[in-house]
């Protein structure tokens, strides 16, 4: 396995893990889901601003640069 394949595989494992966690969290009311994670991050104005700044950067990174 090349270094490139190993890195892609690692990204895939982490992504699938996060998706699985979200799937399980949606079935159990006592488990925080991704919405709760972002609600926690955005509960203060500074957090809201920084998360939205991150969202803007994401768009800029993928669609402009």
């Amino acid at each position, binding site marked *: 396995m090349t*270094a490139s394949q190993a890195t*892609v595989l690692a990204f895939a494992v982490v992504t699938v893990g996060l998706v699985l966690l979200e799937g399980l969290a949606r079935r159990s009311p006592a488990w925080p889901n991704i919405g709760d994670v972002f609600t926690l991050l*955005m509960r203060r104005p500074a957090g809201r601003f920084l998360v939205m700044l991150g969202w*803007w950067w994401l768009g800029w990174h993928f669609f402009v640069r």
Partner: protein
Amino acid sequence: MSAQTIAVERRRRRGLLVAGAALYAWIAGHYTPFTWPAAVVTFIPGAVGLALSTRLPRGTSPRRGLSRGVWIAWAAGIAAFVGLETFAFFAGSSSEGHPTVSNIVNHALHRNETRALAFFGWLAFGDWLLRR
């Protein structure tokens, strides 16, 4: 005005917003990266989203009594993703060596249609964030 009328009006506005966003994303997807039109169509929703984030304080707080272990699992998963991205970036960030998310995703964003779809997803994600 009845509750049903208000609900219908809200659905109509939501439908118009989604249709407008889809049209905007379709247009935006046809601009090539590294050009000024691509910069403009990406700058506008970003600036609007950032401005709305300061003007629409939701004041929400996370639900109480949620599993501490699952919070830790989320933190670990997100840290693993960010750590992997940081490692790949400093290890050269190339498709042949250690690709970053950008290197992996860029292949899929070559076509106008997939770029438009991704742009729509980005707009939807921003809308979802603003509703937190």
